């Protein structure tokens, strides 16, 4: 027997790290097989695919892809239209079409992660169930899944997938689903930041055949609906997903009728190969090098605390290696543990819209990408760690990777993709209780879809423009939400001042909600997010970061009395609310994460969604642009002078050019006075250390040390049959 050997990850060569940690490190379990989650992006071709390979010329392929994408987008729209959950209606969902062997050939707009993960359950079914006589696979089968470890996202994201057969031969797979918001976890709405293990997160369904012959099994459906607080909502949304899968299948089969099964099968495969080839060609055009960034989370579970995540992006020839070595250890509390497959899917949110801007999205874009993550919070090995909100750690991967990738992209022909990150100081909240119509609610508003955009290399970020995980998603308006949820807004669509990232180009301002609970005696709530203390809305190339923001609740408030009296004391901004405190009641300022709190009729809740980071030096911002920001109420005259060095005249209606030049000269001189040799800076900076309570989950400071047992993480993982439990 070989003796155990402890290895320090920091000392390993990159390729060794890829070999040992370039895969999910969790152990297999019932319905869970890490091996299927890190297979090649494109499996060996089927006979059907081979039969027509080479018959599709570029125009055939282009037209076929056009049709494929139309079918997928239609599926996404139908899912939005038919669903009841607020987030699904807002488009926080994914639709995908896969090859017969489970490789993603086309994906919808919406949340980038979803379809990119669903190869997992498809490949699990193919590997373990097809030949199992107790399960099998047939035309009309319907599979449900939500377990993040199996290829879901959150536990509260629910999905269906369905095989597509043509003349008895497996042709393709379709899948659809998204943020359901209620999954029978210990608190309403799904996210439970206070949990200790995954067993408190509600349903964990690995691919489960819930229907045959295109119909749900009543017993399975009732089991699922009986496990959640909102059976009516969940049942409607199950039907919506089924309708989408059936529709996708019908459209694919119509194309088979027109063009033949081999044509369609080859087209699906070809689409992945084309994306892979284009991705490699794009990467080859960038400068070889190593691009680095370090980012942090400021909450873990419901605790304050720093989590570190360094990102190294290695560009070698036509390949990228994302190295996440040096991250904080697996904390084993809270639901924020990430697995390798979700970390890779998260990288798409950083890379697809920027580095791969303009290329068609499919799993093929991952072909030239390797991701390695030693055991830590970003590739948690423990089976019982909570992963229901692993994507919250995935967000840090997105931010860090984007910052690193922008350094690569800037000096390239694709500079138009250079941007500071979208705001990610998300504060997402879920409510459970009685609605104003006497109905049962469990879910939250989709206002995270209106965060501020990061500044671009040549443009300001747009205000309240979207959600970093998703493309083309809606943020419902105040009326739509006041119809769904029992509250009224005191203010919402009014931009805050001095919160966006400043720079030569500034970030966009995100929404801030302030609402009064109205029409219900009380609601229970959970919330998650980051960036209450330590902002994650980073600036780029000298741009300032977007502000951190707290969660505020005023309990026992007199807000409704003030409204009835038409009082002028009601605040119209967070600053006014917090500084003047004209609403009476108990003010609670906290970080983003909470669980099981109660808010009552008349309580006031404030949630901010975060603002984009800035780009470049503030002193290079066009003074007229600063003037416009002041006029629009997003920059105060004080900040204009103090940070931008822009002096306004004539009551703030024009720029005083001379005074501005003088002020900017003064600021530059001050900068020079503050300048020191680098070694001097490092010497002083290295003496600093956050307070111990902030480092409880951090690992060794400043850089967590990762030591592993050589035998536990071999370079050649043992093949796993996945049948250990049978």
């Amino acid at each position: 027997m070989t003796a155990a050997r402890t290895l320090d990850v920091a000392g390993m060569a990159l390729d060794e790290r890829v070999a040992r940690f370039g895969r999910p490190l969790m152990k297999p379990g019932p319905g869970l097989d890490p091996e299927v989650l890190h297979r090649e992006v494109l499996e060996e071709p089927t006979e059907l695919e081979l039969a027509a390979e080479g018959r599709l010329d570029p125009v055939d392929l282009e037209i076929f892809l056009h049709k494929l994408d139309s079918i997928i987008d239609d599926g996404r729209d139908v899912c939005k239209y038919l669903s009841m959950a607020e987030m699904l209606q807002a488009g926080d969902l994914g639709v995908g079409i896969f090859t017969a062997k489970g490789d993603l050939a086309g994906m919808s707009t919406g949340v980038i992660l979803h379809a990119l993960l669903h190869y997992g359950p498809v490949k699990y079914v193919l590997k373990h169930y097809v030949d199992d006589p107790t399960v099998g696979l047939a035309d009309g089968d319907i599979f449900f899944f939500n377990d993040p470890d199996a290829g879901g996202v959150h536990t509260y994201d629910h999905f269906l997938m369905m095989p597509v057969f043509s003349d008895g031969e497996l042709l393709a797979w379709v899948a659809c689903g998204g943020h359901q918001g209620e999954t029978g976890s210990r608190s309403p709405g799904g996210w439970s930041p206070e949990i200790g293990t995954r067993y408190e997160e509600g349903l964990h369904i690995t691919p489960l055949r819930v229907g045959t012959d295109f119909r749900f099994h009543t017993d399975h459906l009732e089991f699922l609906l009986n496990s959640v607080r909102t059976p009516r909502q969940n049942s409607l949304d199950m039907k919506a997903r089924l309708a989408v899968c059936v529709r996708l299948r019908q459209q694919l089969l119509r194309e088979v009728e027109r063009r033949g099964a081999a044509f369609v099968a080859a087209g699906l495969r070809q689409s992945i190969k084309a994306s892979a080839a284009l991705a490699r060609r794009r990467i080859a055009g960038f400068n070889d090098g190593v691009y680095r960034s370090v980012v942090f989370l400021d909450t873990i579970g419901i605790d304050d605390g720093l989590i570190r995540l360094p990102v190294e992006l290695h560009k070698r020839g036509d390949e990228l290696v994302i190295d996440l070595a040096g991250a904080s250890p697996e904390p084993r509390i809270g639901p924020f543990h990430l697995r390798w497959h979700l970390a890779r899917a998260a990288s798409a949110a950083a890379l697809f819209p920027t580095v791969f801007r303009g290329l068609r999205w499919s799993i093929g874009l991952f072909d030239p990408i390797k991701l390695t993550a030693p055991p830590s919070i970003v590739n948690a090995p423990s089976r019982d760690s909570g992963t229901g909100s692993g994507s919250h750690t995935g967000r840090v991967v997105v931010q860090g990777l984007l910052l690193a990738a922008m350094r690569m992209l800037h000096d390239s022909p694709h500079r138009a993709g250079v941007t500071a990150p979208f705001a990610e100081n998300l504060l997402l909240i879920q409510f459970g209780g009685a609605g104003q119509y006497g109905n049962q609610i469990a879910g939250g508003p989709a206002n995270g879809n209106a965060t501020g955009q990061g500044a671009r290399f040549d443009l300001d970020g747009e205000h309240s423009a979207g959600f970093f995980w998703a493309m083309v998603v809606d943020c419902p308006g105040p009326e739509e939400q006041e119809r769904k949820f029992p509250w009224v807004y005191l203010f919402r669509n009014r931009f805050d001042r001095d919160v966006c990232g400043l720079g030569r180009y500034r970030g966009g301002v995100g929404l801030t909600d302030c609402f009064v609970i109205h029409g219900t005696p009380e609601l229970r709530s959970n919330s998650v997010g980051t960036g209450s203390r330590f902002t994650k809305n980073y600036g780029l190339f000298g741009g300032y970061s977007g502000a951190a923001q707290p969660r505020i609740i005023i309990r026992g408030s007199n807000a409704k009395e003030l409204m009835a009296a038409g009082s002028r004391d009601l605040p119209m901004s967070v600053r006014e609310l917090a500084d003047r405190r004209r609403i009476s009641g108990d003010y609670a300022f906290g970080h983003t994460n909470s669980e099981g709190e109660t808010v009552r009729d008349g309580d006031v809740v404030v949630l901010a969604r975060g603002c984009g980071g800035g780009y470049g030096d503030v002193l290079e911002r066009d003074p007229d642009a600063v003037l416009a920001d002041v006029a629009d109420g997003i920059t105060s005259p004080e900040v204009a002078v103090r940070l931008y060095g822009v002096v306004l005249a004539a009551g703030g209606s024009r720029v005083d050019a001379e005074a501005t030049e003088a002020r900017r000269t003064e600021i530059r001189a001050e900068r020079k006075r503050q300048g020191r040799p680098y070694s001097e800076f490092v010497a002083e900076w290295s003496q600093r250390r956050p307070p111990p309570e902030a480092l409880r989950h951090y690992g060794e400071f400043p850089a967590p040390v990762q030591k592993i047992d050589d035998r536990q993480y071999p370079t050649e993982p043992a093949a796993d049959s996945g049948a250990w439990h049978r």
Partner: protein
Amino acid sequence: MPSAEAAGASAGPSLLDVDIGGTFTDAFVVLDGRRATGKSLTTHADLSDGMIAAIGEAARRLGCDPADAFAAADAVKYSTTVGTNALIERTGPKVGLITTAGQEDTVHVARSRSWADGMPLEVQIDRTRAQRPDDLVPRSLRVGVRERIDCFGEVLMPLSTDDVLAAVDHLVRQGVRAIAVCLAWSFMNPAHERQVAEIVRREYPDSVLGRCPVLLSSEVAPRLDEYRRSITTILSAFLAPDTEQHVIDLGDRLRALGCRKPLLVARNIGGVASPSRTTALHLLGSGPVAGLAGAAVAARDYGLDRVITADMGGTSFDVGLVIDGQDRNYEFDPVIDRWRVHLPVIANYSIGAGGGSIAHLTDTGELRVGPRSAGSMPGPACYSQGGAEPTVTDADVVLGFIDPDRFLGGAMPLSRRRAERALARRIADPLGIDVAEAALRVRRLIDGVMGQEIYRQTALEGHDPRDFTMFAFGGAGPVHAAAIAGYADVHTVATFPHGSEFNAYGVATMGVMQTYERTRMVQLFDGEAHTDETDAFNSVVRSLIELAERDMAEEGFGMDSVTLRLELDMNYGGQHHTVRLESPRLLLEGSDDAAAVCDAFNEVFAAAYGEGSIHPYGGILVQLFRLVAGASGYQLSGRANGARSAAKPERPASGADGSEKDHRAGALSGRGEQPGHTVREVCWPGAGPVETPVYDRAALADGFSAEGPALMEDVDTTVAVPPGWTYTLDEHRTGWLTTEAAT
């Protein structure tokens, strides 16, 4: 069909109908049952010049003095796109917005993704380069007033009169010329908005302020969603002055010409109405909607219950649907310019694809066609006007579909050499293929993309495209129609003579119509039983009928000549999206009637989204009531009685059975000998270069039929008949392209 020929006499109104397009103004004139068309260049400085010229030409073609035509007309109707320029060039008046305090940035946030609205798909997914349009109302002119109403319409906070006075004072000082008012939940309870209007009227009479209209969102667009409601109100204010002035000038001009009868405008929500009952927003895009109305009439004439219109011009490809003879398919979430609006706009989808669409290679070497267009200047390379980029028209010339010497009847010779050179430099050489192959790829790609758009509007809307007939319009339409149809899974195509004047014909077919909407949530089924909310239902419908009675009386129609149709936007409990239903009952007399409405809704829902998607367990709700009141009069109902055909025309059906082939053969043999034709080499996708017969379409006899490959040339277009397709000309000069199976 809209034949320009004088077409037999019959009783009926004398009508002067006009479509004012971007380039041409077309007239369709009916005098004493005789019809003629006229055409003029659009006169942008004063649109009435072109309009009067086009009417004059048509009148003269009927042997009538234009002055007599104006005097004899029972109505003058027109569609136009005037007002669009005010939007694009931002030449409208300074508009101020009064809204609920704390929500002043709603029109900017615009549901967060407004940067993508109204933009082509490739821009929509390019989030990194997202850019919103400039605000129509800048932040400094958006003023909040303290007030709050909740989702039940209950007042939680009274309206602050002081805030209103301060807001108006601020806006007036800023020089606004119109005020839009949009307060939260005003569609449920408009009291606060009305109070604002009253305060402005009281404190700022016209004598003080000059004319400064105050538009209330609860009147302009009484529906949920403050963003769309605000924008619809703002756009109405923004576009009003240009439009109103234009209509006033036109009315004066017509009266000076001796016209004493009503002037009616076509609207994008369907039908025509007097200008006083029309907002400026209704005029945008009314031309294509008129064309769709004409297509609906033609569909009824031919007994077609599924028609898709495909209009391919130089820069855009427009698609509309006619289902069961009805053109009233609403755009799901209409966008005007770059803003989503609350308007029941008749669906007419447009993508950037046309003869002028530019073919190019991406930086990774993939061929793309459009959406950028060479327009009319410089135009395609073959126009020899300086255009160096290859276009679809250039590909058509290179492949032989367009004869360079007979373009526009020979009025505009084209350069095949320049077309070849552009394709060679930009496409063929970089890809290492020959020019013909490059041209073929360009043509196949644009046909595929356009076919896909039709597929999207049919198959993905729950229809089977194989049930549809495509009406192909536009200069570039018939050249590509059959190929597009192939990609769209459509097997029958109709091409019309003078298709470019179809919109004007469509205006002629439009009757007076008014549409009224009210947002009210009424539950008809609670998941277990039909509810007793019939009183609430009926009360809303009756209030809408009262409005219809008032307006129709003012238009000169008694209710006995008015048809009422109730449309309901409905959903299952908890859904936000609604599905439109033409209600089987106008008023509900009991639970049986409620059940009938619910049954009809389930049926419509299942047809759109599949049987498995219906969910009555969640409850069935009406979310919005829409009453459409139509009056017959001032309109054509189809072909003139006693015109070319006495019998109801029948289209030649596609199919393989012998009787149909016999029918066509019989038609041919009955018309005498095969007409003369020339031959030229045309390179057909899938078949390569083929010596192809080319017919002069004008010289073909009724009933003529030919198998593809063939070309039918006319002055304004060429009909391409690919291999596997058959062309048949009927007695109304409609050319039918049919195939047994699309490829």
